[in-house]
C-alpha cells in the first residue's frame, strides 16, 4: 500500500485550506500546471511531490516518475518542459546506492524528456521521520502562441481520446507489492509526453483539455474535468483499451482498470471536427500508437461521468475513495 490512502488527513481535506490562504486565483484552475505570464512570455509552472512506494518497479523508479510526472503536467498545458527543479528529502539509513540509482534515473529521464535539471536541494531527516526517499520536482516550460488548454474548456460535443492502453503503471507497481509476475510486456508506462503533445498541437492549437490520468486513473481524471468544466462525460466502456494482463491482474485482485494509475498516458478533449486529424497524428507518434476515442462530452448529467456498458446499460463512474485495494468480494 502506498501513502495517504486513508486515515483522517487527506489531500482533499487539506487542499481547500490553501487557495483561500494564498490570496490569488491561480490555484483555482484545477489544472495540472498553471499558465503564467512573465515579462510578456507565457509559461506553465507545476509542482509535485513523489512519495510512491516501492522506489523501484518494473519499467522505472521514483526518479522516472518525478521527472515525467512534472514534465507531463506541463505538457497538459501545452507547454514543452524546459527546466526542472529536483529536491530530495532523504531518511537517515537510506542506502547511498539507492540514492545514486535514483539520481541516475532522474538524469536519464531528464535527457529523454529534453529538460534540464536546473536547481536542486537535499535534506536529510532522522530515521522514522521520513520514508526513504521523497522527491519534489517543479517545472517551467513555454506555452506556444495561441494555445489555451484547460479543464474548463471541455465542452459538449468534444470527443475524449486516450493515448494508449491503460493501467500498465499501476499494475506494474502492484506486481511488486503482490508478488505478481507478468510477461516482459507489463512494465510501467512512465514516459514524457511533451513530444506527443507537440505532435497534436501541430494538427491544431485548439485542443480543449489535456490530462495525464495518474493517481486515481482515468476515472478520476474524467471526473475532475467534468467537475471543472460542468460538462457531462459519457464513457464508452468497451472502447477503453485495457491490455489483457491488466484485465487479468485487475480481475483476480478485484480492481477496476479505470481507477488504476498511468504515468505515460494522456486524455485529450478535442473538438469533434479536429478529432480524426488529432487521432491520426497521435497514432503516428510512438507514444500514441494505440490511441483511441473512448467517450464524448454531453449536455446530460453535467459535471458527472457516466459509463455506457457493452450491454447498453449505464452507470455512474465516481471519484475513487482513495487507493484501490485487493479484495475478495
Amino acid at each position: 500500500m502506498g501513502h495517504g490512502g486513508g486515515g483522517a488527513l487527506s489531500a482533499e481535506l487539506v487542499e481547500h485550506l490553501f487557495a483561500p490562504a494564498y490570496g490569488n486565483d491561480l490555484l483555482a484552475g484545477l489544472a495540472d500546471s498553471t499558465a503564467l505570464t512573465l515579462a510578456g512570455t507565457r509559461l506553465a509552472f507545476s509542482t509535485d511531490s513523489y512519495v510512491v512506494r516501492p522506489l523501484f518497479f518494473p519499467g522505472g523508479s521514483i526518479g522516472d516518475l518525478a521527472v515525467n510526472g512534472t514534465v507531463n503536467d506541463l505538457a497538459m498545458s501545452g507547454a514543452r518542459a524546459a527546466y526542472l527543479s529536483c529536491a530530495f528529502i532523504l531518511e537517515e539509513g537510506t542506502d547511498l546506492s539507492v540514492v545514486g540509482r535514483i539520481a541516475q534515473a532522474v538524469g536519464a529521464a531528464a535527457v529523454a524528456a529534453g529538460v534540464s535539471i536546473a536547481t536542486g536541494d537535499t535534506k536529510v531527516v532522522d530515521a522514522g521521520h521520513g520514508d526513504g526517499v521523497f522527491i519534489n520536482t517543479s517545472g517551467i516550460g513555454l506555452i506556444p502562441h495561441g494555445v489555451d488548454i484547460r479543464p474548463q474548456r471541455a465542452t459538449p460535443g468534444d470527443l475524449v481520446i486516450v493515448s494508449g492502453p491503460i493501467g500498465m503503471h499501476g499494475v506494474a507497481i502492484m506486481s511488486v507489492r503482490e508478488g505478481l509476475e507478468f510477461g516482459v510486456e507489463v512494465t510501467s508506462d512512465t514516459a514524457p509526453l511533451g513530444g506527443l503533445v507537440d505532435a497534436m498541437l501541430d494538427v491544431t492549437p485548439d485542443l480543449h483539455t489535456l490530462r495525464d490520468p495518474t493517481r486515481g486513473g482515468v476515472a478520476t481524471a474524467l471526473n475532475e474535468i467534468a467537475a471543472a468544466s460542468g460538462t457531462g462525460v459519457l464513457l464508452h466502456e468497451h472502447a477503453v483499451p485495457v491490455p489483457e494482463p491488466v484485465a487479468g491482474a485487475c480481475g483476480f485482485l478485484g480492481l477496476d482498470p479505470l481507477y488504476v494509475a498511468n504515468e505515460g498516458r494522456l486524455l485529450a478533449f478535442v473538438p469533434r471536427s479536429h478529432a480524426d486529424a488529432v487521432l491520426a497524428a497521435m497514432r503516428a507518434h510512438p507514444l500514441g500508437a494505440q490511441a483511441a476515442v473512448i467517450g464524448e462530452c454531453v449536455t446530460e448529467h453535467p459535471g458527472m461521468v457516466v459509463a455506457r456498458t457493452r450491454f447498453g446499460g449505464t452507470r455512474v463512474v465516481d471519484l475513487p475513495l482513495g487507493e484501490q485495494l485487493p479484495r475478495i468480494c
Partner: protein
Amino acid sequence: MKYIDEFNDPDLARRLLDDIHATTTRPWAMMEVCGGQTHSIIRHGIDQLLPDSIELIHGPGCPVCVTPLEMIDKALAIASLPDVIFCSFGDMLRVPGTDRDLFRVKSAGGDVRVVYSPLDALEIARQNPGREVVFFGIGFETTAPANAMAVHQARSLGIGNFSMLVSHVRVPPAIEAIMQSPDCRVQAFLAAGHVCSVMGTGEYPELAERYKVPVVVTGFEPLDILEGVRRAVHQLERGEHRVDNAYPRAVQEQGNPAAISMLAEVFEVTDRAWRGIGTIPGSGWRLSPAFRAYDAEHRFRVTGVRTQESGDCRSGDVLQGLIKPNECAAFGTICTPRNPLGATMVSSEGACAAYYLYRRLDTAPPAPPKEATPVG
C-alpha cells in the same frame, strides 16, 4: 480471456434477454445471494435491461458487510497493539467500526497489511518471528478453505506467532433465515456459484422443497447472471421449485471434497451474529478445539471493546431485501461511501455502495457541485 470473454458477449446477452422478456408474464422478486453478483449486475447495468416486472433483491452475501461490529472493533483493538502485524483482505480496511476503521489504524502508525491470500500472512509470520501476526479470517464457504489451510499449515510448520481472528459465515442458514422472515418477498434464489464450487449443491434441495422456492446456482459473468435469471423466471412462470445448476462449468454436485473435509477438521459450526441482521443459529464457523491455540480472540483477550451501531442505518432491512438502499433516509445524505454509516455502504459489494456509486443518476438528486480541489 477464456471463460470470461465468451460469457460477456453482447449478442448472446441479447438472446437471453429476449427470452426473459418473452417468458415473463407477471412480477417476480428474486434474490441474488452473493455480493459479487450484485456488483456484476449493477456494474454492467443488467438490472436496467431486465423487464421492469423482475425485481432483483440484493442478498446478504457480502462477508464484509455482515461481519459484526463487535468483531470489527476487536480487529481494530488487536491491530493497534504495538507488537502485532495485522493482515487483512483489502475489503475490510474501510469497514467502519464504532469509531474508526483499519485504515485509520494503519495511518496512525499501526502495522496493518493488506494481503491477497492468508498464505501471505503466514509467510509474514514466518519472516517476523519476533512479532505476532494476526490474520482477519472473514468470508463465506468460498474463502473458508483457504483460511483453514493457513491455520492448518501454521500448526504443521510450527509457526507459533500466527493466529486468526475468525468471523466466517455460512450461506444456507442465512437463506433459511430470510425465508423465515414474515416480511419475506423473495420468490427465487440465484445461489452463489463459487460457494457451490466448494460446497456443492447438496444443501439446497431441502431448502427449495421446504420453502417452495426455485434455487438456481448462478455464476458471475453477465451471461451467467442472465442465465440464472432466465432459469428462475422459467421455473417461476411454470410454478416449479427445483435446484438448477446454471453454472455447471465451475460447480459440481459434490463440490470440492478435499476442501469440505479440511473445513470439517479446522472449523466447527457456531451461531454467528450478522451485522444489521442479528444472530442466525448455526450460521458461522469458528476454529475447532484442536486449533484453539491459533484463535486470536483467545490469544488477545481484548477487553473494554464497546460497540455502538448507528441508529439511522437500515442495512439489516437492505440485507434482507426489505427495502432498496435508496429507501433509507440516510442514503446519499449522511451516509455515503466516504462517510459510511453502515457496512453495506462501505464495501463495493454492499448494496448501498453499489447503488450510490453506480445508480446515483437514477436514485438521487444530482450531487452538489464539487469543491475545487487542486490536482495534478
